[in-house]
Structure formats: structure tokens, C-alpha cells
């Protein structure tokens, strides 16, 4: 069958959609991860905590689907990326899943019993369900930039360097941890922005604004530091030789090498890409100003920062998706790790049909739930189904 988009174009479109999925997840579930990370600190008494939890209570479940959809879409469009990353980050992935499993349960079960010890335990479970994934997702992106120690044999079976413990500890290099902290800072900024917008006026909202100020500042400094490290210390990857964008996806049909400063080369080649890191930095500053004034500007800033930071990672690494540190030729790139031409086309049609529908009804739900959450609502005086 003749498809009206050529294979190379579809690969680039799906690389863009990968970015949109990550953005969808970070921008929506980012609220929930950030709010849960803030929960034990901005809210101390039980009704304060219920206020915070109920501010995301009706929405977090829909937000989380971006994560599930991300998994499914990577599986469908980038099967090798799905296979290499999740089996390569095996133990880290288990920790993320365990933390994320605590989250739905924490939301639903926490307020079912009056017992303070029960509630306090679930509050910490919710904290873990927010903070741990926020940290590990960042660390994973950092490791993707550093390269993963894997190689492919000629049947495409992968093998990894590092055992059960060492493999996990090797993920915790300084640059990767820095990336983890950038992620935590930007998501806490985003969560604090949510609380400033959604909570009734009062002490909890004030605390969120104050934490948000520091988080926005941290996000700015840590992200800038990451850029400096890419310039002076952390090597990137680049393709050597020419590549046909329409090639059948087989990573072993190319050459690649590790090179100093390679992750910044795209900005020299395509200067307009510089807009991504600029947004990342400017967004943090806007958020900082917003928190000082306790206005919705904080949320605009945090959303801008997240967008800029995620786009920066994509712009730096293109066309690499998962470079291999021990065998650069095995690296997975946009050109050689996608699904077949037909699957990419079919899935694009599905995305074009369903994403607008999803955005439409999500917007409708937001509209129904518009407005600040009050303690009265949150503690069940109105509506016994509150968390």
C-alpha cells in the first residue's frame, strides 16, 4: 500500500509525538507528582492535608494515563526503545512502578479511616509516589544523555554491562543525579503553582508559594548548571557517515561515536533550537516572579519551564534516542529504532483522531471542576466521596 507520508517524515513526526507525550505527562501528572512531593511539608494538620489531596483528587487519575499511554506509544512506535530502556533500567523501573502503585491507593484509602497513624502512613506513601518517580524520571533522562551500557547482537538481542546492584548504582552518576534534581525542582515548582491556583486563600497556599519560590530558583540554577556540564565535562554522541532516513529500522546499519560537546552541536547547526533552553530558563524566572506575587503567573512559568527543559533534551540529542556507551554503533536513533512504515502511519491516524477528543473532554472536566478547593469540600462536609 502506498502511504502519502514517507518513512523518514513519519519517523520525525513520531519523534515529535514522543516529545508531546512526555510533555503531556510532565505538564499534567507533573502537578500531581509535585503536589504529592509537597504534601507533608506544606500541609501539617489533617484538614490541611485533605485540602491539598482533594485539590488534585478528581484529576490525577486522568493525568496518570499520559504515563500509561507513553508506555504504550513507545511500545508501538519505538519497540526497541521500549525494550532496551525498560529492561536496561530494570531495578529503577521496579522502584518507579512500586512508587506509582502506592499513589492511587494512597489517594483512595487514606481518608477511609480516622486513625491518625493510618493517615500519616498514607501521606508518606503519597510523598514517595510523587517524589521518587519525579527523581528517577530525571535520573533516567540523565542516563539516556550519558548513554546506557548496552549492545545489540545480530538478532537484536540486547545485553547489558553491570549486575543487579552495580547496574543500579551505575545509574547514579553526578550528571544523572543533577538531571534528577532538575526534574524534582521543576515538578515541585509546577505542583506549588497548582496549589497557588487551586487552594482557598490561607496558610497552606502561602506555604506553597514560599516553597515554590525556592523551587523555581533551584530549577533555574540546576538547569543552567546542566548546560554548563554539557559544555565542559559530559560527552555527547554523533553519527559518522551518512544515513538514509528511509532505511528499514536496524540500528546495526550505522556508525556512531562519542564526542566532546556533541550534545550542543545541534544548537550551532540549527540556531533556532536555542529557544528551548531559553524557555527553560525564562520559565523558571517567570515562576519565581509569580510565586512572589502569589499569582497564577507561577503556573504559567512552571509550564513554560517544563516545556523548555524537555524540548532542550530532545533538541540536544536529536537524532539519538538512547545512545549506547559501550558500543555507540548499537545506539538507538530516530532513523533506526522505529516500528515499520505502516505501523507508524496507522498509529499516527489513531493519534490524530483521539488526541483532540481527549483534550476536549479533559478540558470539559477541568471546566466542571473549575475554581478553588475549600476545606469544607475537602473534609467531606459537602460530598462524602472526597478523599
Amino acid at each position, binding site marked *: 500500500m502506498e502511504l502519502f507520508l514517507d518513512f523518514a517524515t513519519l519517523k520525525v513526526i513520531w519523534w515529535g509525538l514522543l516529545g508531546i507525550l512526555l510533555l503531556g505527562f510532565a505538564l499534567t501528572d507533573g502537578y500531581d507528582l509535585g503536589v504529592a512531593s509537597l504534601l507533608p511539608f506544606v500541609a501539617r494538620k489533617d484538614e490541611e492535608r485533605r485540602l491539598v489531596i482533594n485539590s488534585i483528587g*478528581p484529576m490525577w487519575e486522568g493525568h496518570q494515563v499520559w504515563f500509561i499511554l507513553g508506555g504504550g506509544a513507545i511500545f508501538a512506535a519505538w519497540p526497541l526503545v521500549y525494550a532496551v530502556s525498560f529492561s536496561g533500567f530494570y531495578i529503577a*523501573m*521496579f522502584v518507579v512502578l512500586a512508587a506509582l502503585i502506592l499513589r492511587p491507593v494512597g489517594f483512595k484509602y487514606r481518608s477511609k479511616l480516622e486513625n491518625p497513624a493510618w493517615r500519616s502512613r498514607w501521606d508518606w506513601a503519597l510523598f514517595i509516589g510523587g517524589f521518587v518517580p519525579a527523581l528517577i524520571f530525571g535520573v533516567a533522562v540523565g542516563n539516556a544523555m550519558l548513554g546506557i551500557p548496552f549492545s545489540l547482537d545480530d538478532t537484536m538481542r540486547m545485553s547489558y554491562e553491570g549486575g543487579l546492584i552495580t547496574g543500579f548504582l551505575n545509574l547514579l552518576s553526578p550528571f544523572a543525579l543533577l538531571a534528577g534534581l532538575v526534574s524534582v525542582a521543576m515538578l515541585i515548582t509546577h505542583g506549588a503553582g497548582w496549589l497557588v491556583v487551586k487552594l482557598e486563600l490561607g496558610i497552606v497556599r502561602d506555604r506553597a508559594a514560599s516553597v515554590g519560590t525556592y523551587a523555581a530558583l533551584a530549577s533555574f540554577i540546576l538547569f543552567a548548571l546542566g548546560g554548563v556540564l554539557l559544555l565542559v565535562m559530559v560527552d555527547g554522541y554523533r553519527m559518522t557517515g551518512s544515513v538514509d532516513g528511509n532505511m528499514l529500522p536496524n540500528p546495526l546499519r550505522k556508525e556512531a561515536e562519542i564526542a566532546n560537546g556533541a550534545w550542543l552541536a545541534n544548537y550551532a547547526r540549527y540556531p533556532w533550537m536555542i529557544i528551548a533552553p531559553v524557555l527553560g530558563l525564562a520559565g523558571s524566572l517567570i515562576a519565581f516572579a509569580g510565586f512572589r506575587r502569589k499569582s497564577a503567573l507561577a503556573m504559567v512559568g512552571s509550564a513554560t519551564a517544563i516545556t523548555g527543559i524537555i524540548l532542550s533534551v530532545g533538541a540536544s540529542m536529536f537524532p539519538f534516542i538512547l545512545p549506547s556507551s559501550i558500543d555507540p554503533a548499537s545506539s538507538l536513533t530516530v532513523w533506526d529504532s522505529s516500528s515499520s512504515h505502516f505501523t507508524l502511519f496507522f498509529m499516527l491516524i489513531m493519534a490524530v483522531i483521539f488526541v483532540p477528543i481527549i483534550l476536549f473532554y479533559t478540558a470539559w472536566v477541568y471546566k466542571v471542576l473549575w475554581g478553588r478547593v475549600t476545606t469544607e469540600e475537602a473534609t467531606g462536609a459537602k460530598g462524602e466521596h472526597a478523599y
Partner: protein
Amino acid sequence: MPDLLVADLSRWQFALTAMYHFLFVPLTLGLSMILVITEGAYVMTRKEVWKKITKFWATLFGINFVLGVATGITMEFQFGTNWAYYSHYVGDIFGAPLAIEGLMAFFLEATFVGLMFFGWDKLSRPAHWMVTCFVALGSNLSALWILIANGWMQNPVGSEFNPETMRMEVTNFMEVLFNPVAQAKFVHTVSAGYVTAAAFVLAISAWYLLRGRHVGLAKRSIMVASAFGVLSASSVIVLGDESGYVAGESQKFKLAAIEAMWETEEAPASFTVVGIPDREDRETHFALEVPYVLGLIATRSLDEEVSGINDLIAEARKRIVNGVAAYDALQRIRANPEDAAAQEAFAATREDLGHGLLLMRYVDDPRQATEDQINAAADDLVPNVALTFWGFRFMVGIGFLYLAIFAAGFYFMNLKRNLPRWYLHIAVLAAPLPWLAAEFGWLVAEVGRQPWIIDGVLPTHLGVSSVSAGHVITTMVGFTALYGVLLIIEMRLMLRAIRLGPSGGPVVPLGGGGISDAIGISRPATPHADPYDK
């Protein structure tokens, strides 16, 4: 060659997490439909009673739902963590239904479920009912896409192997979507979910009646549950997914294993009701047989044959030999993609490549396999007969039992207007059985198709990730501990919510008018004080 221990451990972990996930899914599927019915009654009659009933079952739905969601997260990523080679090999086809499930179904369900709980005061009656409908639609569509994915593993249509990319690629998505195995599985699985939920509602309501509490709520709920249950149980029995088992090669093994049928019989074959399958001697001891019935069930005809295990092994052996030729041709193509003779040989044998790969359990290069190894690989194609045989019988037995229970409930409630205490006891005691039936159903379907992860395409042991046994043991211990704790907490909260009953005091007692009274089309329920309704 992948480690067989890692493969076994990964299978155990998959079974553990999938079966645990499936403790919650059937109830979500069915209870969401029951909420649509009870809230529909509220929208039509505007009686507060139905709102209270809906809210009560919604509370239990919520406690169950979150664990389904939480454990579903593991399922979405486990293919990547533990079955990386599988993910590479078939992601081009298998990934699509998972992604579409997210796009079409799970977003719908998850976005509206929050509003279903939080939106009672924010939405009009019909708008809230619509939200509940979206939750039910989302969860049922979710099952559709997951079973399209699973159906493709059982009967991999619409795809072929590409030597350049070393994986299966889609040739026809429509065949994948309209796969007969997937369709049969979908109807069967959601019906099983409806039976589970109807049994759940029936049991809790019966318990209330035995204790004389919440009589109004309980009787109305039994009315809904028994009618819904009769329909679902009929559907689950009539539309069993056995009908799909004639489609694929391993499905023939599965069908033969379900019947412990060692030799092919002349059509129509007889049905072995009970017996003790013996794999060593290849016969079923103490078999109690009913003539003709199997042929009718399996082929829906009187003259089509059902193959016995021994004949299937002999056929499969030929395919393994042919698969070695396919493997050889593939190696030659990979050495020289222009080799026309190799391409021709591969085109002639590619259907059997998977059978050739079965030998990799014994040798690194299937071309080096001995006669004994080929015979062993053919024998491996027989699944665990005893488990498949008995699992199927438990499942079917429970299905028929529940059809009887629902029919009796419908009869007592609507014609006799009175539920005898012995019946209520049975309804309470039988409650765990639908879950057991669902788990047996999963075992029959998945154990019955071993040693394949993709029927005829990829042997299970080749699908695993390149991780160590230590990795898998670590996560298996972790999941077991986490899931164990969560299950205890869930049961505790569920029982507590059941003990507390509907919030805001007792529901108006039900008069003697059966269904017409319950939905308020004959006359208002008499507001007399029900002595049991405290």
C-alpha cells in the same frame, strides 16, 4: 541463548502480576455496568433511593477500581522490563492495541472516574449519568483492546517476519483488529466480569437480608443483579472462547489438552466429563465420556474432526523440520541479502520459522539439532494437560452454578417476592467462585498455549530480557510483598465499607411490587416502617 531459569521466573512473575491484576478487573468491568443501570433508574424515576444505591455500590467500586489501576501500571511496562526480546520481536503489531487502549479507552475511563465521585453536586442528573456511562464504556473498551493484543498472541494474523529488521511486522491491521480469537475472547471476558459483579452485588445484598439490614437497598440490588446475572451467565457460557480454539495451531493443542484427548476420534468426538489425564502413558484414566458433545462444542458441526494430541505432535514434528530449513534460509539471507535462492527457500518455509526456533531450547543453532532433540521439541508442544483439563472443568462448572443461582434469585425475587434464607446463605457462600473461575480461565488460555509466547512464531523462552535470575527474583519478592500488603488493606476496607452500608441511614423499604415497584412505574414504595430495616 537466553537463560531458561530467567524465562521460568519471568513467567512466574507475569502469572503472579496478571492474576493479581485480574482479581480487580472483572469487578470493575461489571460493577461499572451495574452503576449505569442503577443510576439510569435514578435518572428515570428521580427517586433518591436509586441515588443512594448507586452511591453505595460506587464506594465499593472505587475501593476495587484503584487497585485495578495500580496493578495495571505494572502490566503495561512488564513486557519491556521482563520480555524485552518479545517486545522487539512483535512490538510493531502488539504495541499498537496497547497504545490505542490508552488513547481510546483508558483516558476516557480515568478522566471521568474522578468526576463520577466528585461531580454529584456539580452536574445535572443526566450529565452525571453520562459520566458514569463513559466510565463503563472506557473500562469495557479497555478490555477490547487488551484482548485484541492477547488474541493476536494466540492467533497471530496479519503479519510476517522481516529478515532485515529481525522482527514481525504488520501486513494487515484489519485482520489484527477483527481476529476471531480476539472477538471471542472479548465477549467471553467481559461477560465473565459482569457475572463477577452480579455475584458480588447479590452476595452483599443477601448478607444484608440475612442480618435484616438495609432491606430496601438489598432487595432492589438483588433485582438488578439477578436479572443482569442471568443474561451475563448465559452469555459467558454460550460465547465461551473455546469457539476460537479451532483457529490456530497451538489452539488445537489447547483444545485437545482441555479434553485430554490423546487420539483423534471420528467426528463428532465424545466429551470427557471427568478423568485423570496421564501425560506419561498418554491416556486419560477413569474417563467418563459423553458421546458427540465435544465435536458439537468445539467445531459447531457434526462432521468436522477434532485432532488428538498424538496426531498433533506428528504434524508439529514436520513443521519443526521445515522450520530448520526456514532458519537456514534466513541465515543465508542475512549473510547475503541479495541471495535469490535463499529468499525463495525462505518464502517457501517462513511459516514454520517459529517451529525451528523451538529447537533453541536444546541447541544454539537449530541446524545442528539431532533427531532426539527434534522429537523432544515436538513433545514440548503439549501443554500441561492436567492443569488445562481441570482448570477448564472448574471454570465451566462455576459458570453453570452461577447461571442457576441467578435464575433462582430472579425467580424468588420477582415471582415469589421473597428470598428463602437457604438461598441467601448460598448466595453469600458462593461469592468467591467467580474470581476463581476467572483465574482458571486465564490459566487455561495461557498455560494451554505453552510453549509459545506468540503462537507458532516465537517460543516463550526466547522472549525474555537479558537480565539475571537475581533481577527477576528481586522484583518478584518486591511485587509479592507490596501486592500482599495492598490486598490485605483492600479486603479490610471493603469489608468495613460493607459493614457500614450506605451512608445517611437506611433506604426506604421496598414494597411488594417486584420490578415495577422498584423502578417506580406502578406506585410509590409504601413508606411503612420495615421492622428489619434498622
